[in-house]
């Protein structure tokens, strides 16, 4: 049909380039289609729930709701840090105290951080047990 003849021009290198670009743009979609179908076919979702502390109540020692913790923990940590380092106030529990409940850094910290490609350099200096193996049953979904 004549249009095709007209647009047959784009069968050259330009056409190739453009097709490649289109593919690039659509690639992530494909990725999701694949993953989505995989999950639909009963594959295990790639993102599990985070480790819940061993303690019973779901209140953190900072007396904060989990959601807010997620959103703001590093700010609290930063503030505490300033107090400790600069003003010698050690009455507030800090990073060290976190690991009393959340025993696995891999599952408590790194999981999210990796998800969003953030590498806070706390653990370059501060000790945090890094035991990979943990058992979801111990921390039932909620």
């Amino acid at each position, binding site marked *: 049909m004549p249009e095709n003849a*007209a647009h047959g021009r*784009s069968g050259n290198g330009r*056409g190739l380039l*453009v097709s490649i670009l289109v593919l690039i743009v659509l690639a992530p979609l494909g990725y999701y289609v694949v993953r989505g179908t995989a*999950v639909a076919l009963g594959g295990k*979702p790639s993102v599990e729930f*985070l480790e819940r502390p061993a303690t019973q109540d779901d209140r953190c020692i900072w007396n904060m709701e989990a959601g807010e913790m997620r959103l703001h923990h590093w*700010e609290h940590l930063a503030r505490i840090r300033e107090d400790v380092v600069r003003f010698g106030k050690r009455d507030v529990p800090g990073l060290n105290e976190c690991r009393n409940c959340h025993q696995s850094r891999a599952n408590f910290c790194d999981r999210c951080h990796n998800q*969003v490609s*953030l590498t806070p350099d706390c653990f370059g200096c501060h000790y945090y047990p890094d035991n990979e193996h943990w058992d979801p049953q111990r921390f039932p979904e909620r």
Partner: protein
Amino acid sequence: MAKGDKTVETADRTSREKQEAGALVSPPAALADSRDGQPGWIDPDMDFIRVLSRQSGDSLKKCIQCGTCSAICELSPDPKPFPRKEMAWAVWGMKDRLLKDPDVWLCHQCNDCSTRCPRGARPGDVLAAIRQQSVARYAVPRFLARWANEPYCVPLLLGIPIALLTVVLYIGNSLGVPQPSRERIIFPFCNKLPHWLLNVSFAVVGILVLAAVVAGAMRFWRAMMIADGRDGAALPAKSPPARIVAALKIAVPVLWSIIAHDDFAKCTKTRLRFYSHLSVLFGFLALSLVAVWVVTAKVNPLIPDGLIYPFGFWHPWKLLANLGGVAILAGCLWMVVDRVRDNEHSGAFSDWTLIVTLLAVVVTGFIAEILHFVRLEPHRHVAYFTHLVFVLTLLMYLPYSKLAHIVYRTTALIYAEYSGRNGKNTARTAGREEES
């Protein structure tokens, strides 16, 4: 199609036949009134001319109709000298004729004509101004389009999204971050913003914009139909499925040629315009896709286990978004260079606003991203807010700013294909046969 259109169209056709007969019309008393706007009856719209001149078309009056532009223009079809006739119409302030003319949208302003014009009439820029006008004509609501072309409206235009976002955030905060812990935003890009509310509001705006776009496109299409004197349903096939097939047959190749920049590739002045526009276009596509994905995450069946936001740096979407950002950045920068280099073509207001807005979007975006990874408080919040402001600006004014060319050019090209403008009478002849 409405009956009114039919009547007009018939009257129109009669007069056209008269002309074709070439007989000197003894001024038909019948037509004496309400014949303005009909072919042949000219009442120049001087305000239109003034508006064009105020925008990039300040040189239009210099045209002496030598036709150099048509000789040079790669897109000029043989039967109708383009852009010469558009220039003539512009000089004669034939607003209706121009705004109903799909051809003005064929031009992608390679400015070959402008550089070669012996009288410096710069047809390319004039056409740009005309396009801006036809956007203003068909956009819904019109006043926004009017504002979008007025420099002194810029504060207002920027103010609206700022106000909107501020309200959204205020509401969001009073509704109270933290969000329900079910929320899968585990580590918000900017935790000062209620993302669920942002998503909702952006989605709403997006839908409104879409509606406006569709409405505008339909107005435009109808206008072109009337101008050509054919009723709306002049597709060869009658049965709905067949119609759809026919429509696709027309639309798909056009869309492809747009994507593939067939016309840009013809531009002889500078090859790089092709690349700049290509990269900007694809960057834009990529980013919009990502945005849509994020905003519609909640209702997206492809995300069974919820969206995790923000994406990690190596997440496919994130990669795509960054690539897109870079593409737009590079493309826009080149465009700027191009315009600055070409000293007599400084570029129109609408032109610059679009480029600047795009640049602002990507630059603020990148800044926000960097600050996000650096976790620099509070700068990243401010940056992200500004970024959102510009994104919203871009989105809100899509149907009115120069960005509207996405819609109107596509419509025009499809129409041209459909009406067999380029001499290829595909659908048109078929339609005629149907009529007879």
